[in-house]
């Protein structure tokens, strides 16, 4: 890999110890993936924030890097293991909270905005088409590549942080044209009326065509009344596709920015009602929920409006959590949405999500509108799950059983 003088200076330690280690990481990755050069990045989205995942080792490393590491491009942070303000209401232990706050402060010392969200594109970090960025968090990576037309590989936490501190990333993979081209045609014939349906589609696709870039062609029924799916639905697909084994980029004909730029693949499959129904069934453990969870990935303002509207002031009988970014929550407070949801007994949490919060043992079963959320609730938090539309989730919260 070709290195310019700036990169060599960082490797020699002229930019400090954190920048030296970071440049070593970028050079190692560039060598493994046979990149020819480093390219500048316009932003970084950094995962590796929850103390539940990082532990004391991660905390130590970040505090060491924060001594002399400073970001070289606008950088935002993935969700933490708790709401940084209302963690007591979530039942987070004091010791966990103290260490979680130290992790976020270390990132802040490096100049990272403590946005603590997996939907940075709803919270001020929204790359334009064609921009190179270094993002981790698979749902955000897939949304940036597919829906926004920005270019990023699926970084890990340390490589995204290294790119942030150096302002660069190795030029390989989804930064190049070739790997972004669709390899498989998917004719979507099933109606997809909700984010949950788009997540089910992503789960079906991830299993059907692992590792191959899909080009989706929507039938009139699949596209919905507006003729094109809302961003919340594309976000649900962006979250589910990589979670269930698919790629970090997809194209939707007539919808996403790069769909028409590449040749149409010859090979393909059709996805019908039965495939989507099977994906729903695979994400239904058949257990009555004690937690209703919305906001994986973090809810948009439009979703918060819908939750408040669907609740319509009715009190909830089951725990209802809606997760979003601090930035969107503040706008929702201004619109009276948080007040309305919380008056019903729901909780609008910011900064965190139920994938990275320490919830194991506290809930038995969750119903959520997120296929990705189902996958991770089953894993680390050992819960039973059910995938359902937002309407069904809200009805489950106010106490209707699944038969009603």
């Amino acid at each position: 890999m070709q290195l310019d003088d700036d990169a060599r200076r960082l490797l020699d330690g002229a930019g400090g110890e954190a920048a030296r280690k970071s440049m070593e990481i970028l050079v190692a990755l560039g060598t493994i993936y046979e990149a020819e050069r480093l390219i500048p990045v316009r932003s970084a989205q950094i995962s590796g924030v929850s103390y539940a995942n990082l532990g004391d080792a991660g905390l130590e490393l970040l505090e060491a890097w924060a001594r002399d590491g400073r970001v070289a491009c606008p950088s935002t942070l993935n969700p933490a293991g708790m709401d940084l303000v209302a963690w007591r209401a979530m039942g987070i232990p004091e010791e966990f909270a103290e260490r979680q706050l130290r992790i976020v402060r270390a990132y802040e010392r490096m100049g990272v905005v403590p946005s603590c969200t997996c939907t940075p594109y709803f919270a001020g970090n929204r790359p334009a088409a064609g921009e190179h960025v270094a993002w981790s968090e698979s749902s955000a990576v897939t949304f940036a590549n597919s829906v926004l037309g920005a270019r990023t590989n699926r970084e890990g936490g340390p490589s995204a942080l290294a790119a942030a501190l150096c302002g660069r990333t190795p030029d390989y993979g989804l930064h190049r044209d070739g790997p972004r081209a669709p390899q498989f045609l998917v004719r979507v014939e099933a109606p997809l009326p909700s984010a949950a349906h788009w997540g089910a589609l992503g789960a079906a696709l991830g299993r059907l065509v692992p590792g191959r870039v899909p080009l989706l062609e929507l039938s009139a029924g699949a596209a919905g009344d507006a003729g094109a799916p809302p961003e919340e639905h594309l976000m649900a697909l962006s979250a589910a596709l990589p979670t269930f084994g698919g790629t970090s980029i997809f194209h939707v004909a007539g919808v996403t920015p790069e769909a028409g730029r590449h040749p149409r693949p010859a090979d393909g499959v059709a996805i019908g009602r039965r495939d989507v129904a099977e994906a729903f069934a695979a994400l239904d453990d058949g257990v009555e929920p004690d937690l209703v969870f919305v906001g994986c990935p973090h809810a948009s303002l439009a979703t918060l409006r819908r939750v408040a509207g669907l609740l319509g002031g009715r009190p909830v009988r089951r725990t209802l959590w809606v997760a979003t970014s601090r930035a969107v929550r503040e706008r929702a407070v201004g619109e009276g949405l948080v007040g309305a949801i919380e008056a019903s007994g729901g909780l609008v949490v910011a900064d965190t999500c139920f994938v990275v919060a320490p919830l194991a043992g506290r809930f038995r079963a969750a119903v959520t509108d997120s296929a990705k959320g189902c996958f991770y609730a089953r894993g680390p938090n050992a819960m039973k799950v059910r995938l359902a539309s937002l309407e069904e989730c809200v009805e489950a919260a106010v106490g209707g059983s699944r038969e009603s």
Partner: protein
Amino acid sequence: MSSAAISFYGGVDPDTGKVIEKGHPLEGRSVAGRVLVMPVGKGSTVGSYVLYRMARQGTAPAAILCGSCDTVVAVGAILGDIPCVDRLDPGGIGDGVVVTVRGEEVVVGE
């Protein structure tokens, strides 16, 4: 010497260096202080932080030799200052053999 991929996040106990993944060929054996030879790494990127933690508490491998180094292991080795060699043909290396790693050079035997 491992014939299968190792996940440092969840597959290895960072406090002892022992492989804890059920059914793994090295299950129950420790990588601490050894030259670890494996075909490839796997698993979550949190594994990089685990390697760093193992290096800090002395339970990390003395060196890692990979047939095809993945990003999790490459990054973890840099964070933890663990010598790491990529694209290694493990011919001539087996359990118990003395291996010297000096930069990119791997010498088998005394």
